């Protein structure tokens, strides 16, 4: 396991408040958190505690209502939507519980998508990167299949390939095994372990204490706040 070298993520008093006409919901209520480069962090907590919201804010899919968020030293709360998209494309890879592969596209096309949005890459370079990513998750044989032709585990592996094809510095996984049987889930977790072992920074939301235990650090949330934050005992 790599030793943490420098803070990749820095959150200070981070808030996310959902406001409706009658109600104000504090999904994140003053989060202070540092995640170093190369760390493997599991975020746990009961439903509605703010885990997925935290992941969305970390992945720049959602905007904080207050506080500070620095990604690799860059204050991302102040940058415009285009720059956020650029950061998402280059620095962040997402793995979702429901895979979120585009059904009309083949596995190859899904995996290639981040590289298309990155621009500046030749077709050959894109193809090579996609092949490497698919090989990394053992999905080369299924490259021309559509998502509907794959099992859940295969779909999630294709989704992981899509997440890592752009070589991001941060991988965010939201319940990556939530829709899978235990065997498939175990295989995905092994894949995540390997990615971490190769140097990826990984933040994973999970309900499963066994999977959480595989991370180097466990952050437990409650009511939009961090309840506990500590290293996992060996």
């Amino acid at each position: 396991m790599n030793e943490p070298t420098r803070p990749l993520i820095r959150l200070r008093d981070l808030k996310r408040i959902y406001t409706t006409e009658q109600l104000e919901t504090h999904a994140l209520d003053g989060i202070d958190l540092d995640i170093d480069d190369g760390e493997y962090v599991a975020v746990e907590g009961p439903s509605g505690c703010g885990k997925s919201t935290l992941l969305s804010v970390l992945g720049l899919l959602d905007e904080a209502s207050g506080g500070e968020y620095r990604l690799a030293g860059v204050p991302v709360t102040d940058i415009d939507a285009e720059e956020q998209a650029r950061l998402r494309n280059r620095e962040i890879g997402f793995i979702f519980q429901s895979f979120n592969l585009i059904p009309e596209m083949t596995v190859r096309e899904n995996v290639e998508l981040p590289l298309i949005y990155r621009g500046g890459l030749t077709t050959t370079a894109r193809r090579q990167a996609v092949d490497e990513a698919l090989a990394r998750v053992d999905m080369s044989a299924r490259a021309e299949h559509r998502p509907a032709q794959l099992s859940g585990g295969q779909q999630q592996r294709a989704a992981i390939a899509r997440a890592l094809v752009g070589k991001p510095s941060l991988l965010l996984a939201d319940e990556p095994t939530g829709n899978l049987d235990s065997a498939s889930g175990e295989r995905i977790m092994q894949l995540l372990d390997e990615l971490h072992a190769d140097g990826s920074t990984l933040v994973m939301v999970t309900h499963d204490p066994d999977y959480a235990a595989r991370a180097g650090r466990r952050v437990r949330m409650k009511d939009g706040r961090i309840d506990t934050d500590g290293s996992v005992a060996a």
Partner: protein
Amino acid sequence: MIGGLLLDLRHAARLYLKTPWQSALAVVMMAAAMALVSGMASVWSELYQPTPAGVDSGDDLVTIGPRAEDMFGGTLGAGAIKDFASSSQILTGLTGESGFSRLPETDIDGRPVDGQAAPVMPGYFELLEPRMRLGRGLRAEDFADGGARVMVLGHGFWQDHFGGDTGVVGREVTVGEDQWRIVGVLAPEFNGVGAPKFHFWAPYESYFRLIQTGIPAEMIDRIPMWKIFGRNSGRVGTAAIEAELDRFLEQQPPAEQAMAPEPGELMAISGLVENPRAHRSAQRQVTMLLIATVLIALVAAVNVGIFLLARAPARQRELALRQTVGATRRRLAGQLLVEAAVLVVLGSALGILLSIWLAAGFRELRFLEGAAFAGDWLNLPALGFSAMLAAVFTLLVALLPIITLARRTLSDGGRQFSARPGLFQHAAGLVQLGLAGLIAAAATGFMAHLWILEQRDPGLSTEGILAAGVTFREPPTGQFQPPADAATWAYREAVRERLLALPGVEAVSFGSPLPGERMTAISRYTIDGETVTARIVNVAPGFIELLGIDLLHGRDFESAGEPGVIISRRFAEKAWDETDVVGRTVWQDQSNPDDERGRILGVIDDVNYEHPDEPPGPLVLSSRSGFGAFMTATLIRGNPDRERVEEVINTALQTHLDLLHVDKVRPVADIVAELTAKDRARGRVTGLFGLVIVLMTAFGFFAMQRFLVDAGRRETAVRMAVGAGPRSIRGHVLMQGIRLGAPGLVIGGLLALIVVAWLTNEGFVTDSVSPAVIGGGVAAGLLALMLLASLQPAVSAGRLRPGDLLKEE
């Protein structure tokens, strides 16, 4: 049952009020489509079954009239009609109503009568079977021996002149100096086929004796003055009737051919109409407009479909939920039908109101002038048919969510990942853009045509010029002789002097016909073997300068009645290939070599004298004496009081030419503008149709794009998650729009090209309008429209918050 219905109604109301603007638009579109189709179909059906009110004789009647606009009444004489009747294998009961119907000032039983009477041929009442209020119509025996002095009264005349006396039939009245017998009174709804309201109907020979035309009796049967009616007993098309007519005309003896039209100059049309030429033109134009309204209705229907289907994905979840709590498929179908029925009822109610207004409005269209309309009410079958179509279509589309629901399981109801345009969207895009291209091109063609006509330099200026035309106080009878020239010149001098003394008058001259009047005399000149056909305008000195016509060579007339002519550039170039031809002659009396009447005094630049759509032709200005000079209009440059002008001229006429009085004083620009009035009306109507279809297409395309963006939000969120920025997402949506619209764009551009080429070929649009430019312009416009309609959905997709969407697991 009732409770459930009320619940569904309440739910439908809530549903539509949730998106009030879209709902209102759907209702308005449905109403507009229904109104346009039923309004235009009402006009169309009347044009194809034209029978004057009060006629009960069936629908196989035909009218024969002149094909050309400028054939004054010219059909056949009564004798020729009778000959044709005996030889025709197709038509029976041939008869006629004369356009020569103005009564001279006369009196009936000592009371003066001034108006119109209808001289008719034998068989008129037998063929038309007009409804009678009292007595009978004219019979064969009334026409025997040169015609009996019998009359059938029009209802209005009977009321006004005879106080509605029911004992009037059989009564002898004194008309002029003769005794006439009243044999019947017509029902109020029948006023004859012609435009005027007739006072009475009489055998034609008796009528001509009454008005004392001085025309010898043997000539009366040869005057081609009839609107001819007959029964199409062969039930053939009008082309076959026209062919039979042409054969008849070819066989006319040479003596008759001088009076009769040439083969091909007469036309036949189904129904009883005043002006067959105008009626057929109206039929063609209304048919085109009906097609346009049907196409607009189709686009509106597609839009209503889009509106209803756009709700379908969002409703899957609701319908699935209702199923989980026990709603049967039948119950859900009932709910959807109630929702659709609300839309249909609202749309139909508004549609009926609009239809009534539009059906009346369409009849007033300027280019339908001269067409015969029997009724003035909406055609109920047409309205019912369009309402039924709207209802069936809406109800069918409304049920689609139920069919979609059948393909889904309850558990995944409402969960949609991405949306790609399906068959419906592609078909809708194709139909909308294709039809929008067609209608918009027609509208653009008509408007470009109008613009070109209005921009053309006629070579003369009509702005700020008033014209006072003159007419006879009483129609001349017998052999008319114009007054001596001296009286005409004295009249002109008096008018000129007095008008120039009026405030606001800058210049005065005389001329006839006026620019824009289609009554120009035509003459043929043979010069060095080259024949030049030219229009002749009778003018006075100062006419050229007053109208701002450029004098290229020579001079204007210096005195009234001065011999010589002024010709136009085109005349000179055609005859001599040069323009400086002053001093040459356009014709010469061989017996009198000193005759100066054909000598050219000046050459003017070309002027578009008759119609802006016709190229300027050779023109000859003459200051001749005689009838032409006597009837010339007065032209006044300036802004004097029109009543004072009329008063001054009438005073001078009373002194010098008391046969005449001022007909009307009006700006010459109005006379010219009148020429393009039909073009303006066509431009406005088609422009309105074009605007409606473009707006509908824009709305439909917008709604489709909005639907695709809404239904594909999850996919958009994933794209954003992997690094697509707002710009990429906007570009993706715009590209999706272009892909969706491209086939429609190509078809629309092609249809635009074809329709403008066709309109040009048919003479509706001037040759100066290029079909390729219009087609390309319309295609470019539609592309801009597509992008514009996609802009808001694209912007909204770019602003999506992917975090919220991707959390919805």
